[in-house]
């Protein structure tokens, strides 16, 4: 494998006495799609937040294109500019139109011209099928549409890696499909993606690697057929059988 785009090395993160990550290793190559799975509270969001420097790590390193971004001398804002992030909910800025949400970072952070950013944003909105909503405010959109716009907004900064944190888990079941369709398309076009998800079926189809997070470490990782189909670890099997019971696989 060539140098990974994102390389997480022995990352430790604690909240007070609660050690959430105990040395997580995770390498993500160019154009790879990695699915993070694990029970609620296993630290998936924490890992993604450490990667996007929304939390400072307590030990270990995160390398982005070989650069140690956990070094305190690194400008965190400049690092975040190279990442695209979508959260579970409350992504969009309610006081701005869809178009303004998407062009905000390109214009204000990347210094692109308004006309330029607008054109590219409309192109992105076209791709997610929401170009006719460009002038709407987010609260006029369904949850699924909002998440699709959030993905478009993250893509508008042309990120090196797209980090998705359970972006469908706050949605009504019938809205999940349209959001996953967008993710699938973005993945097909070669975007490097790390996504925390509970959608095992989707992970199976789209991910190149599935990582099972448990007890603060990546307990098991590999191709989806292996991790989801023939897990080696007892804990992985346990987790998967619970997920199957819940009808999510």
């Amino acid at each position, binding site marked *: 494998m060539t140098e990974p785009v994102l390389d997480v090395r022995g990352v430790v993160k604690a909240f007070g006495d609660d050690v959430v990550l105990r040395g997580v290793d995770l390498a993500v190559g160019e154009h790879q799609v990695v699915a993070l799975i694990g029970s609620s509270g296993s630290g998936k969001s924490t890992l993604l937040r450490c990667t996007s420097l929304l939390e400072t790590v307590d030990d270990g390193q995160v390398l982005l294109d070989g650069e140690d971004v956990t070094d305190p001398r690194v400008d965190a*804002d400049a690092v975040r500019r190279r990442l695209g992030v979508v959260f579970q909910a*409350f992504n969009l800025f309610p*006081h701005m139109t869809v178009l303004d949400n998407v062009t905000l970072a390109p214009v204000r952070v990347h210094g692109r011209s308004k006309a330029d950013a607008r054109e590219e944003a409309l192109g992105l909105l076209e791709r997610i099928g929401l170009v006719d909503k460009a002038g709407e405010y987010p609260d006029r959109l369904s949850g699924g549409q909002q998440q699709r716009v959030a993905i478009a907004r993250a893509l508008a900064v042309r990120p090196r890696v797209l980090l998705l944190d359970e972006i469908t888990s706050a949605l009504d079941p019938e809205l999940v499909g349209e959001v996953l369709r967008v993710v699938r398309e973005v993945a097909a076009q070669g975007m490097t993606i790390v996504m925390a998800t509970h959608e095992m079926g989707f992970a199976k189809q789209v991910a190149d690697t599935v990582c099972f997070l448990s007890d603060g470490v990546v307990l098991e990782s590999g191709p989806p057929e292996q991790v989801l189909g023939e897990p080696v670890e007892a804990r992985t099997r346990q987790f998967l059988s619970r997920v199957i019971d819940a009808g999510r696989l």
Partner: protein
Amino acid sequence: MPAPSELELGRRAFRARRSQRSTLVALGSTLVFFAVAHLVVTRSPGWPRVQATFFSLDVARESFPEILRGLWLNVQVLVVGGLCVLVLGLGIAVLRTLRGPAFAPLRILATGYVDLFRGMPLIITLYLVGFGFPALQLQGLPTSPFVLGTTAIVLTYSAYVAEVFRAGIESVHPSQRAAARSLGLSHRQSMRIVVLPQAVRNVTPALLNDFVALQKDVGLISVLGAIDAVRQAQIIVGQSFNFTPYVVAGLLFVLLAVPSARIADAVAVRARRRQQSGSVL
């Protein structure tokens, strides 16, 4: 929309009848109340004297122009002070929400400021600033009661308004800040572009409410000797031994406050509608 059914037509007719009836009842009872109040007051033994000393049309007519001129000073204090309060209040609120140990001194300072001036009665702040500053006899320090009075009012109101803004900032969901930062916006940009616009929108009704309060409190600069509407009324009362000028000044303040009170209502209604569109409660 399809033509309404019999059932719906019946419901509409009933609602119309009911609202007609309640309007009539409300109107009627209001009229009765005022008629009774009028009778009780005007039949009271002291009424002729009260009418002569508080509601003398002649004195009112005579004092009106000067009191109005005094009110102009209050309006100036209101406009200048109001703007300063907004800026200072917002600044203090932002300081209070700074995170991290590096900002601890600023945060503590801002918190102390709010504690001090929110707890101190406005009248005492007025005395301390209005008589204390000039007593220092420092070169360049203003001595005009207008400037000193405005300063004292700004000090007190900024503390209130800072708390209103802070509540607004904290009402913005934390994910909004995370979303802004993860787009690469700096702390300052996230605050200015994402958090503050939402915060201000959330607290506009509360701010307008404070503005209405400020409108009458600007009358307190009279205690420093500024010739405003209240002071002017006081002077005429002293000369004429008639209290009507106070009533005139009071009514002028009420007139000044009515438009902003209505605007505050309208804004509150709009905010409520935005939050619960369609609900009947």
